[in-house]
């Protein structure tokens, strides 16, 4: 674990990106092989389909101190599993709207459709999202403070 230095470093937000295996993860791979950069604080978790992402994963991320959570899936109609992302779309629409209702900034959550051919889009989306999260700064509203304490010890 890193030690807290006396000098206050600029805050680097943590961003969790869930990517479906068939489109968005491949899109991220294409962004890589095309050398299209995006900030290093974006970390990708591979899931078979965007519909595998349980709202609890999103909440868990925030609990553990993530500052932004983004889900990427195949474009609607192109889902490898035919209908998976249609369910994702409804679930996350309702969840994100609800989180905003609880007072969580709506820019902290996002769903984007990125195909396996859209390396450029993947990179653009991540740059944009990271920029927004940077502007928002640290997520203080939906964070388990004990996790922070553990970390600061």
């Amino acid at each position, binding site marked *: 674990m890193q030690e807290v230095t006396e000098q206050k470093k600029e805050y680097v937000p943590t961003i969790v990106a869930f990517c479906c295996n068939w489109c968005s993860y491949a899109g991220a791979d294409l962004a890589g092989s095309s050398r299209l950069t995006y900030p290093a604080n974006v970390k990708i978790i591979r899931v078979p389909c965007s519909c595998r992402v349980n*709202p*609890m994963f999103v*909440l*868990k991320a925030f*609990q553990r101190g993530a500052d932004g959570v983004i889900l990427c899936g195949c474009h*609607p*109609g192109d889902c490898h599993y035919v*209908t998976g992302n*249609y*369910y994702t*779309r*409804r*679930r*996350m*629409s*309702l*969840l*994100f*709207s*609800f*989180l*905003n*209702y*609880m*007072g*969580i*900034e*709506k820019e902290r*959550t*996002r*769903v984007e*459709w990125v195909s396996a051919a859209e390396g450029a889009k993947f990179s653009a989306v991540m740059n944009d999202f990271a920029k927004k999260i940077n502007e928002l700064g640290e997520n203080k*509203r*939906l*964070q*388990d*403070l*004990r996790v922070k304490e553990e970390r600061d010890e």
Partner: protein
Amino acid sequence: MNKVEELIVKRARELLSSKEVDKVIGWKKGEFYFDPSPAVFTSEEELKDFVYNGFCGANLSKYLVQELKKGGKIAVFLKPCDTYSFNELVKEHRVDKNAVKVIAIECQGKLDIEKIKEKGVSAVTETEENGEEVIVSSLYGSAKFRKEEVLLEKCLTCKSKKFAVADETIVVNEMKETANDRFSGVEELERMSEEERFAFWKGELSKCIRCNACRNVCPACTCVKCVFDNNASGMATKAPADTFEEQMFHIIRAYHVAGRCTDCGECSRVCPQHIPLHLLNRKFIKDINRLYGDFQAGEADEGKNPLIEYTEKDADPTAAVNGEVRHA
């Protein structure tokens, strides 16, 4: 004894004596007039304690889940809003409708003893509904209130006086639909800024003591094992340690019942800390109506809820959250 109660008890007696049913689920006299509680009656003698008065707000549908496991045919008395919960339980195979006789009963809105106490009336001995007025008798005399002053929160914004299911009905007086908009509370919050909303919920939810009353009373919460009790879920928690966990618990609970919640209002009614939990569920209901078209859970005992449905033209989450879209 009021007329409706008379008819209900008479019917319960008939059903038990004719052995048409083995059990009746209703309300039983409590220590006081104002604290009747749900109860199972298996014999005619037991029916002497049966009550149906202004304080029978409890939704009996959920009790069927456990009682049916013991076998036999059951008659249950359901108020209009309770019938929706019943249908939802049938839809999810929690209740076998063939083993149940649903007797739909009149409801003019149920009373909130806390509100009456706040008005300075204690030791209530009887209440009488008289149109838009309620006469409350107590050991110390009687008082008259306008109905909306003393109704339960859930009854102030009653969603419908229609019975979603009924094998038979016991209705003496006409039931009037409530004019109140049940989404006005949600809208009020939506108008606030994100900071204000967060402050509001932080204030409300930090009152939570995780007594699980909301979960235990909720007819949609009938899981054999709740995620919060399941170690494999990664979400298992017992008591709340801080505001985060209260938020987490209530967010997930509201999400899990989204599309299945009939808005029966039991969660708010039973919350000992008076947290307006219905405002959480109604946000989901309101968003579902806005994005996917009007949907009332429990209107029918089959079909899909909006979260296990989709159309190709559904809104994208960003547009949905920004409120830019509306169901055509």
